């Protein structure tokens, strides 16, 4: 089997250049590629376009890359909870494209699946639909949306093997599987790396064909945005 193992995040991301387009998995802070984000901070790469459902918080996740002004454009569905983001947006330093969450997910899925366009009802009659082709199917209007692809996709999984097969845990799956397929180079970081043959093929969520590099992550913080308990 092909071995895709790299030693760490710094090596995994070392050919990401200025002005690259990146996809970063996660919903809020759940299932984000923490190690790759730290490595990008260290590398100092600039001018990034980041496609990610959210933009982190001020001091964690993509929010860290905003603090260092490494991001010039975000493509997201929801970007609350981030004061530095707001400041950069209002001052014009940061460009933001907001998309309905399902449209974002499907555009990424389409990118990975080789479907350049599709019609969706989300956003018809709203500012999201401005300038987009509208077509009527069975009496209802739909918007034409196009695929999204990235130079690099940075995904986070629970378990992975040396051939790049991935298994996610809980709701940390979210955008990670579609992003894995939509990146020219997909880098997976995992909490538990195992040899090929150790994962049950029946349970694999992302087949290794989509993953070019994989490494054992470390020091996961897994911050919780809304810690909510019964007690």
């Amino acid at each position: 089997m092909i071995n895709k193992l790299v030693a760490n995040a710094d090596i995994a991301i070392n050919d990401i250049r200025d002005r690259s387009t990146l996809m970063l998995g996660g919903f809020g802070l759940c299932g984000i590629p923490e190690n790759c984000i730290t490595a990008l901070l260290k590398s100092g790469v600039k001018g990034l376009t980041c496609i990610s459902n959210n933009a982190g918080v001020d001091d964690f996740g993509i929010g860290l890359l905003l603090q260092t002004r490494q991001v010039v454009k975000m493509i997201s569905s929801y970007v609350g909870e981030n004061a530095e983001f707001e400041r950069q947006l209002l001052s014009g330093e940061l460009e933001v494209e907001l998309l309905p969450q399902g449209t974002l997910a499907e555009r990424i899925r389409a990118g990975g699946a080789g479907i350049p366009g599709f019609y969706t009802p989300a956003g018809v009659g709203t500012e999201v639909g401005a300038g987009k082709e509208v077509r009527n199917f069975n009496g209802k209007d739909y918007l034409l949306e196009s695929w999204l692809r990235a130079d690099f996709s940075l995904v986070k999984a629970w378990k992975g093997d040396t051939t790049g097969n991935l298994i996610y845990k809980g709701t940390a799956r979210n955008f990670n599987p579609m992003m894995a397929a939509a990146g020219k180079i997909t880098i997976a970081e995992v909490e538990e790396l195992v040899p090929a043959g150790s994962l049950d093929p029946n349970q694999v969520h992302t087949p290794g064909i989509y993953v070019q590099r994989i490494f054992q992550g470390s020091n996961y913080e897994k911050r919780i945005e809304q810690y909510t308990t019964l007690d």
Partner: protein
Amino acid sequence: MALDKIGIAKRIAREIQTGWYINLGIGIPTLVANYIPEGIEVVLQSENGLLGIGPFPSKNQVDPDLINAGKQTVTMLNGSSLFNSAESFGMIRGGHVDLTILGAMEVSEHGDIANWKIPGKMVKGMGGAMDLVASADNIIVAMQHVSRSGVSKLLKKCTLPITGLRCVKKVVTDLAVLEVDPEIGFRLLERAPGVTVDEIVQATEGRLTVEGEVPEMTF
């Protein structure tokens, strides 16, 4: 007496039928889960990839890899399932979710809804709201009847940026339950206890039909 948020949630909970798959928005809609009548079995969908949302966890059950769409820690129930975001919205657009309950800033007499953006204020994004309202056959809006400054939120035409057109089927406010027909406008179904038809008429800017005796809500 106008209803409080819990009253609105309790009244919406009575709309729910056994066997339904339901997506609850943030705010009052989330409260609805607490008042689903005994014996009614439903499955709650969270658009970040979970069917079968359970109660909030105890402290020793908290799992950072298990959150709802409001980013709160949750648990799973027996029979829960997990999936990715594309599959989740496929479920929503494909019409497999029986009921969507969400909040709104404005609803028009044609069933248009505005709930994602206020010009001049920081834009946070629409999240999944546009996908939900564009797809669901059964949408109930939970909201206050008038704004804090006393302006009706049930309008002829929305003034804020639109989230979706002609999609809201029912509105439950602190004053009333109303049906929305894109051709006819709002139709008054029920009054909050002690609220008069006249008060509701005064608080509704959009076209409102009142027919016969309008009953008080029951819970």
